[in-house]
């Protein structure tokens, strides 16, 4: 036990003290912050290209109300003829002409208006103009068809589903729970996926290094191969946890700092989406409130505990396999790929299933994948925000721990033979043989 601790300590400290580790751990959040600053600037940037548009209103839809200007779009209704404007566009200081032909059929579903200009109009200009004209045509129709505005507004209603638990005793859930859960779930799933790969590979590389370095024989004349392997896995896992913990603190606080310093108007970002002009501010505020309620509803305590459990489970499960493969490898890269492939396939499958699980967390694929121990470390964290039934979580955790122990045992059997085996071509079959061979 004392020796195991010594090994863990060395594996941990040598990695944490490395310059590359310190740099990536600190630079990654900084890169995030920089990215936020740049994105903020890009979204805050408004086109300085002001377009002046002459409007020929043949339909007369602008008579009641006119057309409003934008910072980058200035309209002026013209009486001059199209021909004259087309010929002297520049001398009148216009960039384009908008012609609205007369509306002949009030019941038509689509109308065509014309825009004359040297350059094709930008997409945002196009959508802006058609939105504005659409509103005017609507008003025109209401007036011509003598419709009652109040009645019309009554037609415009929205349905939103408010999820309620069956048991009236439990607290009601916010309508945003689903969306918030999906975001958190995807985020957790991606972290798990990256962890398994990055740190699993780190274990594999380190095992290979010890073997090709020939330090391993000196080591195992002092400690059991199992201690060496376990110490390495635990040490690297602690490195992973350290890195994630630092990021979990640094990234949000840097994000907050960026927001405080530059004060980007995040609502500006939202309004960039096409058609988003229709969102009225009340509703936006309501959404934010719902998100906050949903975030508050999540049981963060059990979520973090379970996330750590799956993190450790997934990491131990896969990194022990990576350690076994690393022990069997020589420097031959082609061979190493054929051995790592069987490990990467389930990880990739779990990663894709995770996206399904986020979309429909209670589908049978999501449920079974989150119980199956090779997938559960990635799929279950993605489902956690949707509060899966307790029995599923318990079953999944028990299976994961059991499989973990089994895989560590299997891997240590392969490892103890592999690290002393040089210059031998190894495939899955030989690994199987090693598993059952004696010490």
């Amino acid at each position, binding site marked *: 036990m004392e*020796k195991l601790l*010594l*090994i863990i300590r*060395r594996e941990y400290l*040598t990695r944490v003290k*490395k310059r590359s580790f310190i740099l990536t751990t600190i630079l990654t959040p900084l890169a995030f912050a920089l990215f936020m600053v740049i994105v903020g600037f890009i979204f805050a940037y408004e086109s300085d290209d002001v377009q002046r548009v002459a409007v020929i209103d043949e339909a007369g839809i602008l008579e009641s109300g006119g057309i409003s200007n934008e910072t980058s779009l200035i309209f002026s209704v013209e009486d001059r003829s199209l021909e004259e404007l087309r010929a002297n566009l520049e001398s009148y200081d216009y960039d384009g002409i908008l012609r609205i032909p007369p509306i002949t059929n009030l019941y038509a579903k689509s109308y065509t208006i014309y825009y004359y200009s040297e350059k094709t109009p930008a997409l945002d200009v196009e959508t802006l103009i058609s939105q504005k004209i659409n509103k005017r045509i609507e008003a025109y129709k209401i007036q011509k068809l003598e419709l009652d505005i109040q009645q019309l507004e009554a037609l415009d209603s929205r349905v939103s589903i408010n999820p309620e638990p069956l048991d009236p005793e439990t607290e009601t859930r916010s309508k945003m729970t689903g969306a918030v859960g999906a975001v958190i779930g995807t985020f957790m799933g991606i972290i798990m996926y990256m962890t398994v790969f990055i740190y699993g590979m780190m274990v594999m590389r380190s095992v290979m290094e010890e073997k090709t*370095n*020939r*330090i*391993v*024989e*000196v*080591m*195992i*004349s*002092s*400690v059991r191969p199992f201690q060496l392997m376990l110490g390495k896995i635990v040490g690297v896992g602690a490195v992973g946890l350290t890195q994630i913990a630092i990021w979990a603190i640094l990234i949000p606080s840097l994000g907050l700092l960026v927001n405080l310093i530059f004060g980007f108007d995040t609502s500006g970002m939202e309004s960039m989406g096409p058609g988003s002009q229709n969102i009225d501010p009340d509703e936006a505020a309501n959404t934010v409130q719902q998100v906050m309620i949903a975030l508050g509803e999540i049981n963060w305590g059990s979520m973090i505990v379970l996330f750590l459990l799956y993190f450790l489970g997934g990491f131990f499960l896969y990194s022990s396999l990576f350690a076994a493969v690393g022990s069997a490898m020589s420097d031959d890269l082609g061979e190493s790929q054929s051995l790592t492939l069987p490990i990467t396939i389930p990880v990739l499958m779990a990663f894709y299933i995770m996206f399904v699980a986020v979309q429909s967390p209670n589908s049978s694929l999501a449920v079974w994948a989150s119980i199956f121990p090779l997938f559960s470390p990635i799929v279950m964290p993605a489902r956690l925000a949707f509060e899966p039934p307790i029995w599923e979580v318990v079953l999944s955790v028990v299976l994961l721990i059991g499989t973990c122990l089994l895989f560590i045992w299997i891997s240590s059997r392969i490892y103890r033979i592999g690290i*002393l085996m040089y210059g031998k071509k190894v495939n899955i079959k030989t690994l199987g*043989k090693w598993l059952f*061979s*004696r*010490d």
Partner: protein
Amino acid sequence: MESVLKLEEVVKAYNKHLAVDRVSFEVPKGSIFGLLGPNGAGKTSLIRIITTITRADSGTVFLNGEKLGGRHPEVIGYMPEERGLYKKMKVGDHLIYLARLKGLSKSAAKEAINYWLEKFEITDWWDKKVEELSKGMQQKIQFIATVVHQPDILILDEPFSGLDPINTNLIKSEIHRLREEGTSIIFSTHRMEQVEEICENIVLINQGKNVLQGNVQDIKQQFKDNLFEIQLEGQPVLAENENMQIVSRNNGTLVVQLQDDRASNQLLRSLMDQGHHITGFREILPSLNEIFIRQVEADPKF
């Protein structure tokens, strides 16, 4: 004599290939012992069993009279043939790490390492990374790592392979000093001439089997051909008979083979009686290498 290590009928097979086939021998306490044999004879397999890296399929190993077990790595110092260190670690940290894995406390490890670094006059290496050291320098560190915990038994697998002459001498003299202090040392090598001068006792392994063992001088006596080399002036007249054959005669150097080694005095007397001036006389003993080759060739399986 008390033995530090005793092997009884040790067997080890890899995939039906018998690497070690019922090998038994004893290493006397405080001696330098040679584990000899050609490449692939099973030396490394045997060493891995003794160092508890692997387990014997059958047979028993006794260390200091106890059956080999979990705490024993701490009284063994092992320098494998293929050696390596963690390249990125600092020399001091590395030595402390290896010493602590052998059960030393941190302060005891520091003290012992300082002793050795001072002895080799390399105290300024403490903060150097292993990768900054030359190969010869790394070999010194490797040796310190092997002996730092004052093992009862030191096992050196091809210790001089890849060593420069200076380090070879340094380590040879350290080995002799450690032996004076009571450490038992096992040398494993296929280069017999290297250990002939160092080892008191040997065991010869071939194809996993124990071919020959015992005290080096006894073995040489056992396998000697009663050859004598005489250096003298003049051309002696010697009659060959069944008791004496002249093997070679060359510029005043005469090599003769006697039936009985006790007859050497008689030979000398007859030469002296002939009035020749004798300048040198010695018995030619076979080298371990010759004995080994003879033994292997006598093995019908070979």
